[in-house]
C-alpha cells in the first residue's frame, strides 16, 4: 500500500464553504452539512460515565479542607472572635478571621461599597466571620464549631416593602436605597386619556435561588508566587481578574482552570469570598486548599433572583393599540448594592409598540444575601407583570390575547435612544406559528367550555418576551491548529457551562475544515493556556465565540491554500479545500494532498487565530420568544397540573437542534419553578433568618412537576447582519415568558388572577374560595 492510499486523514471528504480572502469577512453559510444537525454532545461520554473531572472532584496531594464560620444573624456586629480552642484541635493547620492580619483585603459585591473579607459588621445571615483549614473536612468543621464569637445583634429588615420605612434600621450610612432608575418617553397622562380601557395591578415575584447541581467553591494552590485556582465558574478570566485585583497580583500570576462545571445560572460569573479565603488559607499553610460550600451555605451567600413588587398601569384602545404603560418596581438586591432592579423594566420599555411609557425602579437594601445575575435578570419578573397585564387587557377589549400582541409588534427597539432597528425579529412568527403548532384556537375554545367538566378545569395561556442582550460581542480570541494528518485542535478561553458550547464550536470547525467532529480536540477554560474570553452569561457564548472560532478556522484554510498555491505555482484564490486535498477550481488535475503541502510539512502545524469582529452599528441584536401552555386546575383544592408546554423561539440560526431543545426544556422547567414552587422564606417577624434553606423546603420543580409533553419549535431566521454565524442567544429567553404563560393559563381555566408567585394550593385555594364567595353574592 503506498502512502497516499493510507487513510491517514481525518477528513470527511465533502465540500467545505468557500474561503474568503484574508482580512475579509466570510459570507453567511448557505447550505450547511454539520451546523444545524443534531449531534450529541462531544463530551457526553465523559459527563455520563463520570470520567469528567469537575472542579469539586479535584484532589491534590497534601491538600487541606477548609470550612467557613458564618454569621447566624441577619444583622450583627462581631465584637470578638476567639479561635484559640479551634487552633489547638487535631488536624487544624490554619484559622483566619478578621483578627488575623493576613486577611486584610477589600471585597465588594459592586464597587460602590467596599467591605472586608471578614467584615466586623455582618449585614446578612451567612456573612463570613472566620475560616479553618484542616487535614480533613470533618476536622475543619469540628474546628469551626469550636470558634466562639461574641455578636452584638442588631435590628434587621427582611422585606423590601419595609426597607424605606422611617423606623427601619439603616444598612448603609447613605440610607437604604441602593439605586433609583427612571425612564420616560411620550406622555403617559395623554396616553391614558386616549385609552378605552385602563387597568392597574400590583404583581409580586418571590426571591428565587440558583441552586446549580455543583456547589460553589474552588481548590487553590500556590507555587511560590503563582496562584492556581480550580473553580466551578462560568468564566475563568473573570475569576482571574477579580482575584488578581483583590490580592494585588499580576494577571500572569493567577491561573484559573474551570473545565467541566455543574451549572451556575449566573451565580458563578464572578469569584466568591470563598475563592479569596481558599487562596489565603493556601498561602498561610503552604498547601493546596479545597473550599466548597455546603448546600445550606449556598442558600444564603451566593446570590439569588431579587424579589420584586411591581405595579403596572396600562391603557389600550378597543382596536388593540397600546396607548400607555406606567411601571414602578421596588426590588432588593439584598444587603449590598447588587443590581436588585437590573433590567426589571426592560420588557415594559421594549417588547410592545407603545408611544407613552414611564418606569421607575428602586433597589433597596434588606438584611439578606446579595443577589447575583440570575438567568435573564429582571425579565421573568417583568414578564410576570406585563404578560399578565396583556392578557387582562385583551379580555377587557374582547380580543384574543395573541391578536393583541400581534397588533403591537415593533421592528425597532423603542427602549433605546434613537429607536435603532432590530437586526431581525421573529416575535410575530413565534406567536403565530407557535399558536398554529399548539392548536391555540381549538384549545382556547375547548377549555373555555370546560365548565361542564365538573370541578377540574382546563385553560391555555400564552406569554411572549425578548431578551435585552443575546447578540454577543467582542472581545474573543480563538485559535485553531491544523495538524498534518488533518486533525484539529481548537483553543478557546470560554467555558462550557452545560449548554453545549464545546459541541457547537466543534461543529463550526468541522463545517469549515471538513474534518469529522470527533477529530476536533478542544482546549478551553484555562487562563494559562487558552485565549481571553468573557464569562458565559447574557446568552452570548455562541454568538460571541462562534464567529471567532469560524474566523480562526478560516485563517487556517487561507494559510493552507496559500501554502498549496506555492506548491502548485498558482494563485490561491483559484484553490479550494476538498476532502483531503487542495484542488484548483479551474483545473481538477492541479491538486495536492494536505500532508504533501510543503508549508505544513515544514512547520508541522498551521495555526489560525480568529477574533470576534464588532457588532453591526446602530442595530440591536435580540432573541424573541413566545411560549404556550395548557393547565388543569382542581377548583376544590387549588392544585394545578401543567398538561403541556410549547416553546417557540427566534434565536437566529439553530446551531444544534439537540442542545437547542435542551435549553428550551431547561428554561421552561426553571420557569415552572418560578411560577409554581420556588420561594425563599425569611423569618420576617422574629429573627430574619431563612427558614427553608434545604432542598425539600425550598422546592425546585421535580420531573413530576414538568409536563410530559414539552415541545420546542424553533423559528429559524439566520441573522446574517448580527454576526458571521447567524446565531443569537438562546439560554435566557427560554425562561422569560414561562411563568407568565402558566399564570395566564390558570386565569383562563378558573378566572382567578394570580398576581404573586408561586401558584401553589396555598394561594390558589384561598383565591378560589374568595372568588366563589364573590360570585355567589
Amino acid at each position, binding site marked *: 500500500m503506498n502512502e497516499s492510499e493510507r487513510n491517514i486523514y481525518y477528513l470527511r471528504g465533502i465540500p467545505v464553504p468557500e474561503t474568503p480572502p484574508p482580512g475579509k469577512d466570510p459570507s453567511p453559510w448557505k447550505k450547511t452539512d454539520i451546523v444545524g444537525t443534531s449531534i450529541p454532545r462531544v463530551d457526553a461520554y465523559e459527563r455520563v460515565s463520570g470520567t469528567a473531572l469537575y472542579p469539586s472532584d479535584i484532589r491534590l496531594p497534601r491538600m487541606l479542607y477548609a470550612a467557613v464560620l458564618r454569621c447566624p444573624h441577619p444583622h450583627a456586629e462581631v465584637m470578638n472572635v476567639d479561635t484559640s480552642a479551634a487552633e489547638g484541635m487535631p488536624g487544624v493547620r490554619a484559622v483566619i478571621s478578621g483578627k488575623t492580619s493576613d486577611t486584610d483585603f477589600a471585597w465588594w459585591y459592586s464597587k460602590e461599597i467596599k467591605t472586608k473579607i471578614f467584615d466586623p459588621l455582618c449585614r446578612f445571615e451567612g456573612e463570613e466571620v472566620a475560616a479553618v483549614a484542616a487535614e480533613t473536612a470533618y476536622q475543619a468543621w469540628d474546628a469551626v464549631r469550636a470558634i466562639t464569637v461574641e455578636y452584638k445583634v442588631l435590628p434587621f429588615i427582611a422585606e423590601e416593602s419595609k426597607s424605606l420605612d422611617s423606623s427601619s434600621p439603616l444598612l448603609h450610612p447613605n440610607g437604604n436605597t441602593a439605586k433609583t432608575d427612571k425612564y420616560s418617553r411620550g406622555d403617559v397622562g395623554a396616553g391614558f386619556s386616549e385609552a378605552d380601557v385602563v387597568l392597574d395591578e400590583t404583581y409580586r415575584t418571590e426571591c428565587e435561588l440558583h441552586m446549580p447541581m455543583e456547589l460553589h467553591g474552588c481548590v487553590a494552590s500556590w507555587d511560590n508566587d503563582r496562584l492556581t485556582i480550580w473553580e466551578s465558574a462560568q468564566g475563568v478570566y473573570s475569576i482571574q481578574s477579580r482575584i488578581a485585583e483583590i490580592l494585588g497580583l499580576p494577571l500572569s500570576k493567577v491561573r484559573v482552570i474551570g473545565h467541566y462545571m455543574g451549572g451556575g445560572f449566573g451565580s458563578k460569573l464572578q469569584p466568591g469570598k470563598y475563592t479569596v479565603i481558599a487562596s489565603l488559607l493556601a498561602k498561610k499553610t503552604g498547601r493546596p486548599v479545597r473550599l466548597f460550600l455546603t448546600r445550606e451555605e449556598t442558600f444564603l451567600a451566593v446570590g439569588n433572583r431579587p424579589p420584586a413588587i411591581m405595579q403596572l398601569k396600562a391603557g389600550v384602545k378597543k382596536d388593540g393599540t397600546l396607548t400607555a404603560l406606567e411601571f414602578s418596581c421596588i426590588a432588593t438586591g439584598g444587603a449590598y448594592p447588587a443590581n436588585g432592579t437590573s433590567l426589571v423594566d426592560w420588557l415594559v420599555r421594549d417588547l410592545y409598540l407603545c408611544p407613552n411609557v414611564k418606569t421607575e425602579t428602586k433597589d433597596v437594601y434588606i438584611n439578606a444575601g446579595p443577589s447575583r445575575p440570575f438567568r435573564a435578570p429582571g425579565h421573568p419578573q417583568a414578564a410576570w407583570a406585563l404578560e399578565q397585564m396583556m392578557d387582562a387587557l385583551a379580555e377587557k377589549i374582547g380580543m384574543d390575547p395573541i391578536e393583541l400582541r400581534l397588533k403591537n409588534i415593533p421592528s425597532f427597539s423603542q427602549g433605546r435612544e434613537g429607536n435603532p432597528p432590530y437586526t431581525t425579529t421573529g416575535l410575530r412568527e413565534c406567536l403565530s406559528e407557535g399558536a398554529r403548532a399548539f392548536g391555540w384556537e381549538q384549545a382556547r375554545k375547548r377549555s373555555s367550555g370546560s365548565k361542564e367538566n365538573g370541578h377540574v378545569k382546563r385553560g391555555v395561556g400564552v406569554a411572549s418576551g425578548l431578551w435585552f442582550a443575546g447578540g454577543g460581542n467582542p472581545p474573543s480570541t480563538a485559535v485553531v491548529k491544523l495538524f498534518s494528518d488533518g486533525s484539529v485542535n481548537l483553543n478557546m478561553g470560554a467555558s462550557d457551562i452545560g449548554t453545549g458550547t464545546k459541541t457547537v464550536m466543534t461543529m463550526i470547525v468541522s463545517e469549515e475544515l471538513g474534518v469529522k467532529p470527533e477529530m476536533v480536540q478542544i482546549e478551553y477554560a484555562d487562563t494559562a493556556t487558552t485565549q481571553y474570553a468573557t464569562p458565559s452569561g447574557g446568552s452570548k457564548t455562541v454568538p460571541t465565540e462562534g464567529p471567532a472560532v469560524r474566523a480562526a478556522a478560516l485563517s487556517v484554510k487561507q494559510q493552507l491554500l496559500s501554502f498549496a498555491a506555492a506548491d502548485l505555482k498558482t494563485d490561491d484564490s483559484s484553490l479550494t479545500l476538498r476532502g483531503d486535498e487542495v484542488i484548483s477550481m479551474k483545473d481538477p488535475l492541479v491538486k495536492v494532498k494536505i500532508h504533501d503541502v510543503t508549508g505544513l510539512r515544514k512547520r508541522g502545524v498551521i495555526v489560525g487565530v480568529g477574533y470576534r469582529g464588532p457588532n453591526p452599528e446602530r442595530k440591536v441584536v435580540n432573541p424573541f420568544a413566545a411560549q404556550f401552555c395548557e393547565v388543569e386546575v382542581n377548583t376544590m383544592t387549588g392544585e394545578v397540573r401543567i398538561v403541556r408546554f410549547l416553546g417557540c423561539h427566534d434565536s437566529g440560526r439553530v446551531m444544534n437542534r439537540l442542545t437547542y431543545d435542551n435549553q428550551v426544556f431547561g428554561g421552561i422547567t426553571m420557569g415552572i419553578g418560578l411560577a409554581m414552587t420556588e420561594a425563599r422564606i425569611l423569618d420576617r417577624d422574629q429573627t430574619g433568618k431563612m427558614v427553608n434553606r434545604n432542598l425539600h423546603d425550598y422546592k425546585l420543580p*421535580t420531573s413530576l*412537576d414538568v409536563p410530559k409533553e414539552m415541545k420546542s419549535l424553533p423559528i429559524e431566521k439566520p441573522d446574517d447582519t448580527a454576526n458571521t454565524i447567524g446565531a443569537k442567544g438562546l439560554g435566557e429567553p427560554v425562561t422569560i415568558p414561562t411563568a407568565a404563560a402558566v399564570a395566564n393559563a390558570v386565569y383562563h381555566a378558573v378566572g382567578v388572577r394570580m398576581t404573586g408567585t408561586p401558584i401553589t394550593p396555598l394561594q390558589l385555594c384561598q383565591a378560589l374560595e374568595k372568588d366563589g364567595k364573590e360570585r355567589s353574592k
Partner: protein
Amino acid sequence: MTPGFSYRRAASIKDAVTGLSEGNGRILAGGTDLLGCLRDSVFTTDMVVSITGIKELKRIDETPGGGLSIGALATITEVSENPVIRERYPALAQAAAEVASPQLRNQGTLGGNLCQKPRCWYYRGEFHCLRKGGDRCYAVAGENHYHCIFGGKGCYIVHPSDTAPALIAYGAEATIAGPAGMRKVSLENFFVPPAKDVTKETVLEAGEIVTAIVLPPPLAGLKSFYRKIRSRQSWDFALAGVALAIRTSNGRVTDARIVLSGAAPIPWRLVDAEKALIGKVAGPDSAKHTAALSIKDAQPLKHNAYKIPLFKGMIEEEVANISQA
C-alpha cells in the same frame, strides 16, 4: 457536618434494646431521617444502634387471624408494592407510594416513617424551640404556612407521616420491644400530642423499639383510599392528606374512618365527622356535609388559613369519590 458518635450494629432485638439503654442511644434503620437530624444538630447522640442486621424485622407475614404483620424494617417501597397490602389495604399502599421520593422510599423503613421527627423548619433549623427544650415556639408568630390547624398547644407541628393515617384508618397496632419485654399499642394511641408532652412524638420509652405493625383483617366490603396534596409532585410532605375507610350497606354508610395528615401534631382522626356520616346515604350531599363538619374546629395560625378550604375541598372530593367507587 455530623458531630462524632459511637456505632453499634445490633445482632438481635435484645441486643438492640441493651445497646439503646447505654447513654442516649438512637436507633438507625434506613437513616434517612436520623442522619439529617444529626447533621442539622436537631439532637446529638453518643451511640447509634443500627438494627438493619436483624432479619426478622424485615418480614411481611400474614397473621393467623387473617391480618398482616409488617416488620419495622420493611422499606416504604416494599409496603407500596406488596401485593397483599395493595389488595387488602390499598390506602396504605397508596400512602406509601406518596412518601418522599423513590430513593427515600427504597431506603426508608416503615418503623422509621412512624418514628420520624417533625419537619417544622424551626425545629429542624438553628432555633432552640420548645420541642428541643427551649422556652418558646417560633411557629406561633413566625412563618407558619405549613403548621397545624388542629390540636396545636404550645407546639404547632403537623405529623409528617403519610403511612400513619392510613394505618390508623385500618386500626393497626404497633408491637414494641423494650427492657421490660414486649407490649402492644394501638397506632391511634402511639403518637403523643403536644398538650401531653411537647418534647415527645411517640409513646416509646427509653430503650424501646418498634418491631412490627400489625393490621387486623380488613372488614368485608371496606373501601379505602389515601389522598395527598402538596406543593410539588414528588419529594414533598403533605399540605393536606386524608386516609378514608368507608363501608356501606344498601347505599348507607355503616362504618367510617377519616384520618388526616398535614393537619395536626398527630395523625388527626375526625371522630365527629365519622359519626355524622354513619347512616347517611353515601354521595355528594353527605360528602359536602362531612367536609363542612371536618373543619369546624380548625384554628388556623396567621399564614395557614388556606388549609381550611384545602381540607374542606379535598375531603368533599374524596368522600364523594369513594362513595361512587
